[in-house]
Structure formats: structure tokens, C-alpha cells
């Protein structure tokens, strides 16, 4: 993040509502993508709560250049929390499948509403933790180490969860 953006973060940290507004312009699409992909029908609520926490806790961010990774951790945490709460209150309960093949992929057909609906219906049958791993690795392009840091788990855990998540997706997709 270069200097003008760092200064905008500092202004927002000092409580400047115009700087906060510009920060939301930059962060909202990325928070929406994370929360929607992980929390699905609870994504709007998760995104709202994530933005509140980001702005409220912004003064605690020591390094403005670390904004995006810090905001991502908050968004992922809120998305998983909302998705888990939704499951406890009668949402779709996903089955984790322990498979050895880790080379499965997520279908990436753009601009086809029927495919979008199919992707969503398959995602609904994964757990929030599986969706989080897929979002961070396959949508956001994080490395396994970076995804592990975001989720607060060991890299080995990311590898095994990712393999199971991809296989669960592949299995559901081809049913």
C-alpha cells in the first residue's frame, strides 16, 4: 500500500468520516466477496458486522500497510461465525468428506446464471470452514501459508482441509 493510501488509513484512524467512507469504497467489494462466499445467505449480515468491526477497531491497526490482511481476517472470522450460527438455527448441515485426491477443482464458468446457481447449491452443502479454505485459496489466491495465518491454523491443517474441501466440492458437483 503506497503513501497516499496509508495517509488515508491514518486519517480514518483519527476519526475522519470522509476518509472512512473512502476506505469503505476500497474494502467493501473484497469484504462482500469473502462474506458472500463463506456465509452464503448470511453474507449480508456478516459483511455488515465485518465493516463495523473494521472501522471500530481501526485505531488498533499499527501498520496501515497491513490493512488488507487485517480486514480479511476480520471478514473471514465474521463470515464463519455467521454461517455457523445459521447452521445451529436450522441451516444446511454439511458433511465433510475425507478423500485423498487433492487435485479437484472449482468450476469457473463465468456469466452463466444456471452455473452460478449450481455453484451456490454445492457450496451450501460444504461446511463454513471448507468454504473459507476454498475462498482464501481458490478465490483470493492466497498461498497455503497465508491462508493458515488468516485462519489461525497450521499450514498442514490448511493442506488437509483444502484437499477435503476440493474433493467434497467435486463430489457434490458431479452428483
Amino acid at each position, binding site marked *: 500500500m503506497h503513501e497516499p493510501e496509508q495517509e488515508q488509513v491514518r486519517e480514518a484512524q483519527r*476519526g*475522519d*468520516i*470522509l476518509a*472512512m*467512507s*473512502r476506505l*469503505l469504497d476500497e474494502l*467493501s467489494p473484497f*469484504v*462482500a*466477496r469473502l*462474506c*458472500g*462466499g463463506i*456465509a*452464503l445467505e448470511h*453474507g*449480508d449480515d*456478516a*459483511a*455488515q458486522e465485518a*465493516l*463495523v468491526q*473494521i*472501522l*471500530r477497531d*481501526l485505531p488498533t491497526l499499527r501498520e496501515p500497510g497491513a490493512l488488507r490482511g487485517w480486514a480479511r481476517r476480520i471478514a473471514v472470522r465474521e463470515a464463519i461465525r455467521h454461517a455457523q450460527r445459521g447452521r445451529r438455527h436450522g441451516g444446511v448441515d454439511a458433511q465433510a468428506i475425507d478423500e485423498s485426491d487433492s*487435485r*479437484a*477443482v*472449482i*468450476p*469457473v*464458468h*463465468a*456469466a*452463466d*446464471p444456471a*452455473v*452460478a446457481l449450481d*455453484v*451456490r447449491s454445492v*457450496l451450501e452443502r460444504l461446511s463454513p470452514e471448507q468454504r473459507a479454505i476454498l*475462498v482464501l*485459496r*481458490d*478465490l*483470493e*489466491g492466497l498461498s497455503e501459508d497465508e491462508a493458515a495465518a488468516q485462519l489461525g491454523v497450521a499450514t498442514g491443517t490448511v493442506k488437509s482441509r483444502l484437499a477435503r474441501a*476440493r474433493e467434497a466440492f*467435486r463430489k457434490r*458437483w*458431479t452428483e
Partner: protein
Amino acid sequence: MSGTPTPPSAPWPSAHIDAVARLRAIAAARPHLAYRERTVAAPFELVWSIFGDLEHAVPEFDRYVRWIRITARDGERLALESGGPVPGLRMRFEAIHRPGFCVMRAFAAEVGMAASPIGPAATRIAHFEGSRFLGPVGRWLFLRTIGGELETVARLCEARSEATARDAAATGAG
């Protein structure tokens, strides 16, 4: 399927973060701001043509603002002056103003307005006011007025919406 995953063109679900959600987030991060929302039975374009019309409509619903004048504009960045009930007392604001969203700050005041459509015939509106110098006392004072301001906005919008519908019906019948 086999091979390497290829983000990011997948049609993944995305959350929806509208203008009201953004204003809520700013208000939640600034505890001295008084914040209220309500729903208006009028389409978004009509509502924002009133709620977002700083120079003409704000003095109609905010009794502490006698006039507002835009003194400079650079895209969505505005400079404003406003006058209130105390003669000669002016406030200078910097603002971001775009369809459905406006935040303004002066040395001693912060104001925000937002509107988001709920279908074709209703709109959610949100409003905050506050002063970092007045703190919780100021918040309590502003909370006593901004609810009434939103009621006035709703009344203005719904009256205009009804008038528009009547005109359209008369034109269609004529």
C-alpha cells in the same frame, strides 16, 4: 474435473453492501453520532432527489439549517457553507456526495445521509448527526431531532410519490 483451480472468474455468491450498510458502519465506529433509519414508501430515485438535495431540501427537513450553499465541486467532493438559526454563524463543510450516499464534516459537526432501494417502490433511509466536542450529551440531543427529520423526509417523499402517481393516472386517463 482435474487440474489447477482457476480463480477468480467463478460465479461465487457475493454479499450485498449498500449505502445504508456503509453509513451504519461509520455511525457504529463513532459512538458520539446519533443514528436513525426508517423505510419510505417511495422509489429510490424520488427519495434521493429530495433527501440528497442539499441546497433545496435539507432546510425543509432540518430546522437547524436555514440555508446550504455548495461553494465548490470536484466530482463527488463538495465544499459547502451552511447557516442556522443564529444570524451570522456559518459552518463550512467538506463532503462526499454520490447517489444514495453523503457524508459531511465541519470543524464541529458530522452529518451523514444514505438511501438504498427496497424493490421498486420503497427505500430505506439512514441519517446521522453529531459533534465530537459534545460527546454522549450531543448524541442524546441529536437523537431527539433526527427521528423527526426522517419523518419529515418520509412525508415529503410519500406526498410527492402520490402526486406523481395521480398525475400519471390523470395523463393516462386523459
